[in-house]
């Protein structure tokens, strides 16, 4: 299960995730982002309450990162240890802006 909470203020989109960003939930997350991409200039993804992320979730993150790159970019915040390790393993920690 994944709860997605979106907040768009001043063209800055903040997405708060809670739960698992896995194969089952990633399509829903991707859809949620698609709806807002045109309106947003910047994107922040708060992963404080994300238990884990699978490759499907990573794929969405990578896609979002690519989409936002021409604009103000995307940053990921509050990444927990496990997810950070996964980011490290697959080399995402060098690509994404993680705060």
């Amino acid at each position, binding site marked *: *299960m994944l709860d997605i909470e979106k907040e768009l203020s001043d063209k800055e989109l903040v997405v708060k995730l809670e739960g*698992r960003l*896995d*194969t*089952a939930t990633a399509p829903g997350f991707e859809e949620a982002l698609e709806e807002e991409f045109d309106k947003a200039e910047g994107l922040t993804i708060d992963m404080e309450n994300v*238990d*884990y*992320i*699978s*490759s*499907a979730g*990573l*794929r969405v993150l*990578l*896609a979002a*990162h*690519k989409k936002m*790159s021409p604009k103000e970019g995307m940053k990921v915040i509050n990444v927990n*240890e*496990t997810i950070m*390790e*996964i980011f490290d*393993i*697959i*080399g995402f920690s*060098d*690509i994404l802006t993680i705060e």
Partner: protein
Amino acid sequence: MTETDSGKKSIWKRFRNVFTANETFHENEVQANKLGTLVMALSGVVLVIVLILFSVGIFKTSKDLTGPLIQGIIETGAVTVICMIFKYDRKWLKWLLVIVMAVVYAGLDGVFTHKAAILMAIPVIFSARYFSRKLTVFTTVITSGTFFISTLWGSVNGLFDLNIVTLPEGTRMISKGGFLDQAVLDTGFDRKSLVWDAFVYNYIPKWMLFFIISLISMDIANKGRRMVLEQHERDVEKSLIESELDLARRIQSDMLVTAFPDDTAGNGFDIYASMTPAREVGGDFYDFFMIDDTRLGLVIADVSGKGIPAALFMTRAMTLIKASAGQWQRPEEVLADVNNKICENNDEEMFVTAWFGILDTVTGNLAAANGGHEYPLFRNAQEDFSMIKDKHGFVLGGLPGTTYTGYEMDMEPGSCIFLYTDGLAEAQSEAGVFFGTDRVLDVLNKEPCASPEKIISGMARAVKDFTGDARQFDDLTMMCVRFTGRGKRTLRVAADIENIEKVTELVGEVLKGTDCSCQVRDKINVAVDEIFSNIAKYAYAPGKGDVTVSAETDKDRESITVTFKDNGKKYDPLEVNDPDVSLSADERTPGGLGVYMVRKLMDDVSYEYKDGQNILKIKKIIK
């Protein structure tokens, strides 16, 4: 037996019947034959003594009796030897014995006449020993005949019976010394005239007395026969009851599971139990059964009383507990339900003490409730066995509506619970000393880490050594369960992404009893997600199929292994090249990442294709 229907049979058959013995009387016949042989032998000995007494001159008669005496010795001796040769075990020996007796004694009667009148009674009294009226009648007839001849013959040729001599009036006797009979004969008395007198004065009175003895003998034979038959009937009935009891005991022991699974199959537990009834059938029982895939139901119980009634009640209690265990979640609910059901129909006021536990073979959680049964003995991992003073509810079948208190324990891998009935602590030595729970604990703690089978056989040996030759008073039942922590859970689901959560739940349950950190769990979940979603997407595409996922920990719960099996297209994910993780975002493609992550996050990943199945195993060290 044969008398009743003999009327229908031909004379030959009736005659032949005379020589056949009923099986029932076979043993008795052999014994009687032995007695007959003894009588013959003794008769021979008596004759030898008489012969000796004659030859040394203590016995004196007017006639020389050496010849008839030797003849008698030879005859009795011969029959004795024949009986011994055939080991007293021939149907015709009884006929031989009575006929020889009737003939030999008649022969002696012919010689000794009035001096040995009592000889006539011996054959007929002896014949009664066979409990056959037919034989006694036969003996009466034949003895009457032989003694008729011997009496008449003896009156002329045997010892001179002066009692029946009637001399003509005025007869004068002159003694030349010696016996009186010679003086009588010297008068010119003709002994041939004595034949009639011997019949009238000797034979008839003797025969009438003999006939009375004969009647008594016939009655003894008859009564004896009936007694033997009744005894035989009782024996048959008794052996029938015994064989039924034996059958009951076997049925009862068949009810108790004797195939004890050990943990080689990854059940999560080792178990062993034994039941030794004090009588042929007992009221104790143990039982264990899987309530569902992972929960093991454990029962130990003791029914009031012993023998068949207890065994019958036991089967009822056992069945009820097993049925209730499937309906109710908690042990205390199960006991309460069983109690009520027993109480519904319990006019005999029987009851059963029972301890019922449910062991989660994956997590090691043990929930239990006690209905008036002995305290279980428990050891957690490295500790010694000690008594769990659990709260006792009332016995089952005692009062309707009784409630029971459940309790829970977490068994670490290696933990062991030992259950028993009062027959253990109350086993008595020859001196009447109880075995006692202290001794039970001592025996357990000598080798607390032993397997359940060893623990139980060791305990049985200790009890045997303690009680020695003392009688076993009560049933002795023991059950020992060791939680190994290698519980395995298996799930078969459709290969659909929606089912990922079910699989992660499964893994979560297996991990529950371990020291797994959240981070490790999340990594395992990521791997499970990657693999399952891969199978869901590709294995059966575009069709559908199932995946079997099983999760288990190793013995020490230091690692977890999750196995995925599918019957889809053969695909070895480990052959896929690692993605280049150093590429920039624009260069990156999402493919191949999942497997790469699995390999990075897990400690071991293996793949094999076997029997048309893709089998992928991932292993993660927990500690």
